[in-house]
């Protein structure tokens, strides 16, 4: 049972973090929503549809952040063979895929009133779509192989190859001069975005990060329990057989 010594410590840590994350979410989400929908003024160019930005941009940030979590876990899984790393990658993937899909959907719903079209094939949209496919591929490998260890490490290899896509997403708006607007918050020379817009954006971003931590830890605990259950059932079968 020494394999679970480490996960047991992790579960204790997770149980300590979870209430805090839930607290942050309960605090930031209502206030962020209030700022985003009610208190912030309409943009002088975009009108009220700028409010879509307050969920679109944090979703897109989380899509990339989750991929970084997944890729780091994959690296740890391959290099150090840390048992928790495989679990972390598997737990993060569906959350990341959801955030990516949401970034694409909210982007389409923002694009229609602003650009007059739901979708354009520019660098940013295409590379985020590739990110979504990478999440699907990662999860498909987990699905396709019977042995957890092999499946996890094969999926990890794909996740690491896909890291190439992250800088492409980040810089696509600078490399391709198209409809999607360039970065205005995370820039070397400081944000160019107006303070009225920055407030709700950051509150929503913190809320989504707290959400990620909560669901990520739940899913990791879930995967640990799955493995514990499998081991226990095996031992029961062995004891009776």
């Amino acid at each position, binding site marked *: 049972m020494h394999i679970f010594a480490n996960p047991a410590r992790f579960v204790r840590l997770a149980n300590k973090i979870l209430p805090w994350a839930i607290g942050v979410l309960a605090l930031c989400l209502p206030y962020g929503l209030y700022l985003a929908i009610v208190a912030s003024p309409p943009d002088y160019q975009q009108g009220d549809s700028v409010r879509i930005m307050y969920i679109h941009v944090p979703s897109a940030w989380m899509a990339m952040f989750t991929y970084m979590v997944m890729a780091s876990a994959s690296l740890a899984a391959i290099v150090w063979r840390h048992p928790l790393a495989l679990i972390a990658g598997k737990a993060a993937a569906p959350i990341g895929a959801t955030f990516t899909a949401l970034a694409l959907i909210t982007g389409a719903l923002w694009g229609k009133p602003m650009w007059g079209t739901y979708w354009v094939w520019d660098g940013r949209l295409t590379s985020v779509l*590739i990110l979504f496919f990478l999440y699907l591929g990662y999860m*498909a*490998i987990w699905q396709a192989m019977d042995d957890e260890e092999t499946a996890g490490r*094969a999926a990890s290899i*794909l996740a690491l190859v896909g890291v190439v896509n992250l800088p492409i997403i980040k810089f696509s708006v600078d490399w391709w001069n198209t409809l999607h607007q360039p970065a205005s918050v995370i820039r070397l020379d400081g944000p160019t975005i107006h303070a009225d817009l920055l407030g709700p954006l950051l509150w929503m971003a913190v809320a989504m990060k707290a959400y990620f931590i909560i669901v990520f830890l739940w899913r990791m605990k879930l995967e640990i329990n799955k493995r514990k259950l499998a081991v226990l059932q095996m031992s029961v079968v062995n004891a009776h057989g």
Partner: protein
Amino acid sequence: MTNISVSSVFWSLIKRDIKLAWSQGGAAGMTLGFFLIAVTLFPLGIGPEASTLARIGPGTIWVISLLACLLSLDRLFQADFEDGSLDDLAFSPLSLELIVTAKAIAHWIATILPVILISPLLAALLNMPNLGYKMLILSLLIGTPALSFVGSIGAALTVALRRGGVLLTLLVLPLYIPTLIFGVGAVEAAISLTDPFPHLALTGAVSMISLIISPLASAAAIRLALE
């Protein structure tokens, strides 16, 4: 001494794989056939109007070469994996990284190169403007190595699976998108008399990156399957 044997094993592995691809039961001939037939389906499906065909020509040829490449990839390591010769190769002086590189190179020469050579003929069938031919071949030559190399990662990841073909497609196709975009971009730039060089440079960059990454990733995946 060891240097000589490493390079000679490397080249003989490439030669062996090319020979196997063109021998009976090899995938190269069938891939070429697929390419021919699939491209001729487009005029039949879209209609024989010359101006329409001319507009979709470069894209069609690029997409079909991509699919033709995919079609031949799922057996890239599988035959050697099943009959155990991959295990033997793993004990040869060649590192696994070099083995997968050799097999990807052989795949490109045996399967993709014929497709490239025949592509001007099909471009003519699709009524592609004369300005595009040189750039079509050039962009295919520069871009398709990335298809073989990136494809080798997918082939290595799915080598132990009985029905790996569909999963392979799901894994590899998204990674083909950059090559497709820049490759078609180069041909279209040449046809519209703008500078194709930036597209071509990006196509080459994708090939270079895949040349660096894919031997490492494929070898890691093969090691996983051989364990």
